[in-house]
């Protein structure tokens, strides 16, 4: 297959960027979109040109490292599939495929298709954890968790932290990401003592760096882990619940 690749090139956060056009003549339908970029880079290196900087690691959809927009859609044309699982077979011979970095003010470009997503981790640092030191945990069978609660917690805990939800959102909101963590931790008994505090601090940090939610729902369509839109409700629910707690906010 022949494909035209339009790729965003940008040297650094403050540099001017621009599109570069390349042609791949030997693409095959079963190639993933990242393998298509591998192919392009192989070609560029052969011609002594700088390869396109893009990120990936596990290439099996779990690490969340890959993150780029394809024809303006996070990860690529198929809903709920990470870039490493998107395939050339979604395109037709001769088609133009446009690669751009995740688009969000909170994700500054590092180089080419690589963005800085440390803002996501700052939301976790604000309180997305359970304060139990090594060795101090009670026996794991003493706190029972129903089968269904564990399964539902896992539905939310499956978030791979790629940031596609932020890039998909016209507002650059991180509600789906934050809500997934809040819902996951709200569904298991461990750390319930910190539940209200966690909600307040994580949501405050989220609002500090990311945009507001207008309930558009693009995030859930893009999410490779299929985090349900319910996660957004979880943000609001946890915020409301924290507000009703009479303990002083800290």
């Amino acid at each position, binding site marked *: 297959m022949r494909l035209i690749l339009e790729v965003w090139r940008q040297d650094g956060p403050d540099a001017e960027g621009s599109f570069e056009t390349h042609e791949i003549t030997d693409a095959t339908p*079963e190639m*993933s979109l990242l393998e298509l970029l591998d192919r392009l880079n192989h070609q560029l290196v052969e011609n002594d040109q700088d390869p396109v900087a893009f990120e990936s690691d596990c290439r099996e959809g779990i690490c969340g490292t890959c993150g780029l927009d394809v024809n303006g859609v996070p990860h690529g044309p198929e809903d709920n599939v990470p870039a490493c*699982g998107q395939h050339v077979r979604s395109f037709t011979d001769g088609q133009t495929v446009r690669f751009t970095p995740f688009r969000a003010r909170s994700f500054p470009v590092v180089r080419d298709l690589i963005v800085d997503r*440390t803002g996501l981790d700052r939301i976790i640092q604000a309180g997305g954890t*359970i304060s139990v030191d090594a060795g*101090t*945990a009670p026996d794991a069978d003493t706190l029972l968790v129903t089968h269904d609660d564990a399964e539902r917690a896992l539905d939310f805990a499956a978030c791979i*932290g790629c940031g596609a939800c932020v890039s998909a959102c016209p507002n650059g909101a991180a509600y789906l990401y934050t809500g997934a963590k809040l819902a996951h931790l709200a569904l298991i008994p461990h750390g319930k003592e910190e539940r209200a505090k966690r909600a307040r601090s994580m949501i405050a940090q989220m609002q500090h760096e990311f945009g507001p939610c207008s309930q558009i729902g693009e995030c859930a369509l893009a999410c490779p882990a299929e985090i349900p839109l319910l996660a957004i409700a979880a943000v609001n629910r946890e915020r409301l619940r924290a507000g009703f707690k009479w303990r002083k906010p800290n």
Partner: protein
Amino acid sequence: MSATSDKQTKQKEAPVAVTIDQLRVVGKPLDGRVPDVHPREAWTDRKLHYNLVNPNNRRKFKVIVVGTGLAGAGTAAALGELGYDVDVFSFHDLPRRAHSIAAQGGINSPRARKVDNDSIDRFVKDTVKGGDYRGREEDAYRLGEEGIRVINHMQAIGAAFAREYGGQLATRSFGGVQVSRTYYTRGQTGQQLELAAAHALSRQVAAGTCKLHSRQEMLDVIVKDGRAQGIVVRDLVSGKVRAQTAHVVILCTGGYGNIYYKATLAKNSNATAIWRAYKRGAFFANPCFVQIHPTALPLMSKWQSKKTLMSESLRNDGRIWAPRKKNDDRDPNTIPENERFYFLEERYPAFGNLVPRDVASRNIRERIDAGYGVGPLHNAVYLDFKTGIERLGVNVIRERYSNLFHMYEELTGEDPYKTPMRIAPSVHFTMGGLWSDYDQMTAIPGLFVGGEAGWAYHGANRLGANSLLSGCVDGWFTLPYSVPNYLAGLLGQPALDPKDKAVSDTMKDVQAGLDRLLDNDGSYGPDHFHEKLGAILDRYASVSRSPEGLTTAIGLIRELREEFWRDVKVVGEGDRLNHELETAGRVADYLELAELLCVDALDRDESAGAHFRTDHEIDGEAERNDEDWCFCSAWQYPEPGGKHIRNFEPLTFRAVPLQQRNYK
């Protein structure tokens, strides 16, 4: 590594047969500093004799942790919780990206709640026997004993383990074991454990005890006065080379399986940190012990960038078979029962599809090589869930493996609920790694190792679901005891002055290495050489190895290394993000490590676990030689031009008497 000889003179040279004595010298016996008590008591005894650091003094000690996988994030978080001043380095953008996240099936723990007769002793027996008696019994005991607390801790910090309907933790069985001791979260156990660990690290970052240095790749260890006192890193964004000094350095940088070019490992996993530590004086243990996982997706096309693991847990309910007819291209669903060969079930009735990984891999490879492979390239066998679905119903199968089935469908476009999966063996885990004593300290005092980067626990073959366990045990419940014991002896001493000559010298070495790559006037990118190296290792140092093949491989690797330095080109600049430069450095290290891997495989004149020598087999099974080879090989970096030096740590077995493995 001179680049003077050109291709023509090379061709004239007849291949010179080398013997192992021309390649290596035997060094000294090593002391693992294991307490001289019954293995069951060793860890208790060791902990009792450890020195402690007063809580007020802990913040005066600077600790470097490299890597944020289960071992690294755990160590850093636990030492941070205790009050040490920790600097954490990772080449990723976020700590959660570390490759532990991709582990699927589960984590073992001999909590022994069920009445299936599990116990710590049985866990040790399984682990030692599964490892074919080439690991320490005492390490296995620590793994089992601390494994109980690991489940409690990981659950408490947020890992949502699967639960029974009564609310208790659920378990399943795994290969090489006849009890049910594997805890899991669907097919994404590694993800849930890694997130819990990385988030625990985030808690310490917020608390100020851990400082995170992301997108920094470690390129050297600073050794001064015989102690590891810091590291040199390259900032992957700015390209700047800088140093960080500390009282102690802990490497949790993962395994070297990517040396085979296409493995199940993440693209960035590499051997550079441990290899550079080796070149500064740490010993490399058993580099030839490489696990080939039986159930990975086969290669299907030229540009396929890696192989993808399909969890071993699938073998609980999936049955492995190949057609009885060669090159049978029929739709598998149309092949009648009597034309299917369930070769694991027939050959190993006691364990069936749940034989250990090495046994499964060799049998699958044997079928494929004999011409019974399936799929477009005839390089796979079937993993069939039909019986499982009939027995348990599709919902149970979905609940157990939905994300694996989903992943398979995403990658192949086929539905495994209806059509059997196609699977093939792939390099997956390296049991070898930096040699360490019982405290996880390497041959360089002050340099510790955790997780897959080390050699402990797994001997010559790792049991499924024991790697998440070893990462967690090292991280949360071993290094936080043993590292303070070392630090206690340094009380009152400041960390190495960043202006010290040892620091600037090491930085100069690193910069020179980078410049050498950037200035090399070649014509092929580093990937070209990596691919060639992978082909050599795949052919000569994979599921089975012969002395002739290994000798050939060593010659080919040496040639390839020369070719690399003659002909590699690294496009782009050193002062910015440059993946080509990163790759080139890693491939240069692989080209050296590959030789050691083959020398070790040639040297180890027996079959053991994953190391299967064609000249040491009985009826197709590995033939161990306990008389001559019951030790861990710990290779020492030689002087330039010198032979490889093989030190050895003798292994003794008291709790699990030596016996030939038998899964029939």
